[in-house]
């Protein structure tokens, strides 16, 4: 589906205004890929027609759908295996040791999308750290999208999604069949508190986090917004907590107060001492 420069600019501007996600020139493909299904479900003929309808959209409903479609992310369970290995072998054992006296751990997934990342982390915790069942575990997962927050809460995945990166052993243990779909068992769903949160907007009061997952989301923001988000993460973290960014992301030139951990390909950071 072809996209003309005027419509691309218009859609970019709308999306930027509503979500602070930057769609620079060259990201036309992304707009086409994300909006083509919406064009079909709205019974429109083209993205041009969609853009035309958006301009007349007084209620804001169509614009909300466009922003939603542009900000959701294709994802799989155990996406990039390395960070989860580092979490399992190094980061979580260390945090458990340090928090032994309080028996309290605060975790935040900052861009939970359709829920694969928080549920992967929840499975990893249940599988490897059974002792945390007796701790006060505050596990928050947030996303900008209302639809995604609802999807996360339901924890329902299609066969195609369940095939992506999820070990069969864990599927058998933590999922149940729901018609043609697969649903996360209640025990795991109840571990996580799903919220709506716009990273470039106002953040609610939250406990000081021990672990923050913020992978592959900063790429959507422009430099000043990235800086603000990284700073706010620091302010909401325990001084000895950890942040995970996407493997290809960096705090370099954005925030000097982070240091990258020397864990292979995991994008793991902590706040510099002193």
């Amino acid at each position, binding site marked *: 589906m072809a996209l003309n420069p005027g419509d691309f600019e218009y859609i970019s501007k709308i999306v930027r205004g509503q979500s602070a996600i930057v769609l620079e020139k060259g990201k036309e493909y992304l707009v086409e890929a994300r909006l083509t299904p919406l064009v079909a479900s709205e019974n429109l003929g083209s993205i041009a027609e969609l853009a035309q309808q958006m301009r007349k959209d007084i209620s804001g409903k169509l614009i909300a759908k466009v922003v939603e479609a542009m900000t959701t992310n294709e994802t799989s369970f155990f996406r990039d295996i390395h960070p989860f290995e580092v979490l399992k072998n190094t980061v979580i054992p260390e945090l458990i040791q340090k928090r032994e006296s309080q028996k309290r751990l605060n975790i935040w997934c900052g861009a939970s999308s359709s829920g694969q990342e928080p549920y992967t982390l929840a499975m990893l915790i249940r599988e490897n750290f059974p002792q945390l069942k007796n701790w006060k575990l505050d596990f928050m997962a947030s996303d900008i999208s209302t639809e995604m927050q609802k999807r996360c809460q339901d924890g329902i995945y299609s066969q*195609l999604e369940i095939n992506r990166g999820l070990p069969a052993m864990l599927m058998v243990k933590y999922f149940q069949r729901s018609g043609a779909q697969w649903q996360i068992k209640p025990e795991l769903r109840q571990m996580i508190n799903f919220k709506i949160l716009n990273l470039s907007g106002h953040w609610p009061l939250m406990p000081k986090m021990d672990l923050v997952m913020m992978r592959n989301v900063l790429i959507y923001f422009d430099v000043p917004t990235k800086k603000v988000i990284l700073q706010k993460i620091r302010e909401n973290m325990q001084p000895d907590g950890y942040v995970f960014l996407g493997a290809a992301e960096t705090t370099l030139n954005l925030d000097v107060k982070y240091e990258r951990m020397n864990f292979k390909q995991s994008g793991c950071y902590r706040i510099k001492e002193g």
Partner: protein
Amino acid sequence: MEIDFNLEISQYTKDIWEQILGLEVIPTTEDFSPTEKGTTLAGCVQIMGSWEGSVELLCPAELAKKVASIMFGTNLDETSEDDIKDALGELTNMTGGNIKSLVHDADQECFLSLPAVAVSDIQMHVPGTHEVAKATFKHENHLFAVRMLKKVEKKK
């Protein structure tokens, strides 16, 4: 919860054709009647056990040939009859396997037969069964259909 078979078949069929073949198929309300459209091939798998019946994939020969040429990576004119039967058989197998997971009783075993493919210019009639769902799809100018037939239970 009642399962809407037509809806599930539509989703499975779209997924299979898109993932395996990269072809876009659209559910349609148009009727596909094999008699009107030249040679039609029918792929069929039986489901046996806690649910008994069969699943059919009815496909015009021309579309089946395109499917086979994609799966085997051959040119249309060098696609053999064997390739076509194999490709259509596998698509029927995938469709049937997915449908089986919806109908089987979790406590009992349920089996899928190997697929059979035949030329069928008339609508196949399997004695002792009735149609529980039929979904028709469109790919470009081709129509094709998936039928689900359930064995009529004998009166005691």
